[in-house]
């Protein structure tokens, strides 16, 4: 083999070697991150997978899977108490989502748009529910309801959950709202839109992804909330998490697996609706905002 032949091959070899090295370990992707990722995935999903699996177990065992059966779902759904509790939780989640989103969004408008001292102070006051321990929020709500003599019921849970949720909505919507260019609204007014039309046609479409995300978040938070619900719940129906907690005191039944799996399914369904809704409406960019692919 001639020297010239080697000279021709060398760069090729060099290039190939570089390519292989780059693929194996890019300096921005250390190998241990991969391990972290799988550890995270394991600890997040393994318990869920086990609960889901054992919800279909044919025996009451929580250690050994003995065969497929729907008996625990049957037990869950045939119990009037549990069914009522599930409905109560869904109701709490939906009412909190709707009322909390509306109130939180209007509060965000007031905080961003009002130039008064009160608004500036409210910006800080509004953060208090976010940092208040939930147990304090729950206990203080209970004390308040007792003081003014309101009988505990589903409504009291909703009031407490909505109070707690407004801040989340306001924080999320406010961020988006303050990033809006005021000139865009002025342009709408300038082009003949009234103030209400400007909000409906220009501002809300721009805020829509943030409002949707905030609504989903507070649904998820209030639907399966235990602490606040525990303090503010009435006799019956009790929300599902509270119901589960009280039933555990008499021994863990595999029905809990079925309940847990059902609740998980409801949460996933809501998430799927949120991701799919913009796509069905033909507005892909909003879906991107929701799942964090908002590049622009």
């Amino acid at each position, binding site marked *: 083999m001639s020297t010239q032949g080697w000279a021709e091959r060398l760069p090729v070899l060099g290039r190939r070697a570089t390519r292989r090295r780059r693929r194996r370990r890019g300096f921005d992707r250390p190998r241990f991150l991969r391990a972290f990722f799988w550890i995270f995935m394991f600890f997040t999903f393994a318990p869920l997978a086990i609960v889901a699996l054992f919800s279909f177990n044919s025996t009451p065992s929580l250690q050994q899977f003995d065969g497929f059966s729907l008996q625990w779902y049957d037990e869950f759904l045939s119990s009037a108490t549990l069914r009522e509790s599930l409905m109560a939780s869904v109701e709490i989640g939906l009412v909190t989502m709707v009322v909390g989103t509306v109130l939180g969004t209007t509060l965000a408008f007031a905080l961003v748009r009002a130039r008064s001292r009160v608004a500036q102070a409210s910006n800080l006051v509004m953060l208090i529910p976010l940092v208040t321990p939930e147990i304090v929020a729950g206990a203080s709500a209970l004390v308040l309801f007792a003081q003014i003599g309101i009988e505990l019921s589903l409504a009291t849970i909703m009031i407490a959950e909505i109070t707690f949720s407004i801040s989340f909505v306001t924080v999320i919507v406010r961020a988006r709202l303050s990033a809006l*260019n005021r*000139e865009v609204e*002025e*342009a709408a007014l*300038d*082009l*003949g839109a*009234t103030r209400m039309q400007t909000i409906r046609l220009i501002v809300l479409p*721009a805020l829509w992804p943030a409002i949707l995300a905030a609504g989903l978040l507070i649904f998820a938070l209030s639907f399966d909330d235990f602490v606040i619900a525990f303090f503010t719940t009435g006799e019956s129906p009790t929300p599902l998490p509270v119901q589960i907690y009280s039933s555990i005191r008499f021994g863990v039944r595999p029905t809990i697996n079925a309940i847990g799996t059902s609740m998980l399914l409801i949460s996933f369904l809501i998430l799927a609706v949120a991701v799919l809704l913009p796509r069905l409406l033909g507005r892909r960019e909003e879906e991107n905002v929701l799942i964090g692919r908002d590049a622009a």
Partner: protein
Amino acid sequence: MSPNGAKQNGEAIRFEGVTKRFGDTTAVDDLNLTIRSGEFFSLLGPSGCGKTTTLRMVAGFEQPTEGSVHLAGEPVEDVPPYRRNVNTVFQSYALFEHLDVEGNVAFGLKRRKVDKDEIRSRVAEALELVQLTGREHSKPAQLSGGQMQRVALARALVNQPSVLLLDEPLGALDLKLRKQMQVELKEIQREVGITFLYVTHDQEEALAMSDRIAVMDQGVVQQSGPPEEIYETPQKTFVAGFIGVSNLLPATVEDGGIRLATGQLVHATVPTDCPAGTSVHCSVRPEKIILEDLEDGMVSLEGEIVERIYLGTTTQVILELGPNLRVISLEQNTDRSRADDRWEIGERIKVGWRPEHALVLR
């Protein structure tokens, strides 16, 4: 297109003693101004001079603290922005990001419940006017700065307002595009015949496009008139300094002329309200300063060349007449192959100007 409601050669906008205060600061101070319909009128001034506030009072986004704004002869204090027959082109374009080009341009017509077919044809017409035919279904995010600017313009023009308000619309464009858009804007204005009220801090832009200019400073109109008048005969030191480059030489009024800080008595026309002994400025445009080739009757001084800057079509020569007294001269490079080799730095040469080119300003 023909402007709605604007009487031909009538008045489009009139400011009557308009003052606008924000807290302790006075943004606009006793403004009295009439803008004729069909006119391309510019408000020119440095940032914070009150020009944008003036524009916003016409649009209806701000209310005058005192005085009143009249549109087509009618006072408009009680008319909200969405009922005024004016449209605005914003500095940030302010396009509706979630609507496409067509949706943006049609927005105003839809609010006024214009017939669908008419909307379609008028939008197409407006897009043709700004040369954006074919981009109807692009979203603003997919457009370049110049194209967004055109959409903003079409969106306003399509409503055929009696007055179009433009708030530094070319500010965000690069120099070349800006020059091109200046010409286009002027052409469009001539074509549609709508009154343009144009706000800018760029004196060259104002000179190039306007029928009339009002130079503003600290909330007050310092001078208004056609570009030639503003440029050739500024009435105030601020105007002379703000429009173009000007040599402002400190001087004192004496019998028969003014005495420059160098000690020479120079022939000049002194305004009647300047008695002898008044401190004034003598303003001479750089292109009116003549070096060496002085003729009879010209003011004749001597100066030392301190800098020569070759600018392509012209060469800027900076001369020192005395301590802290410099003049700038612009020499055309038409006759010479290179103007910068005519004189050496440090050389003493004759400097002069025609007496009629010197303006005495208080």
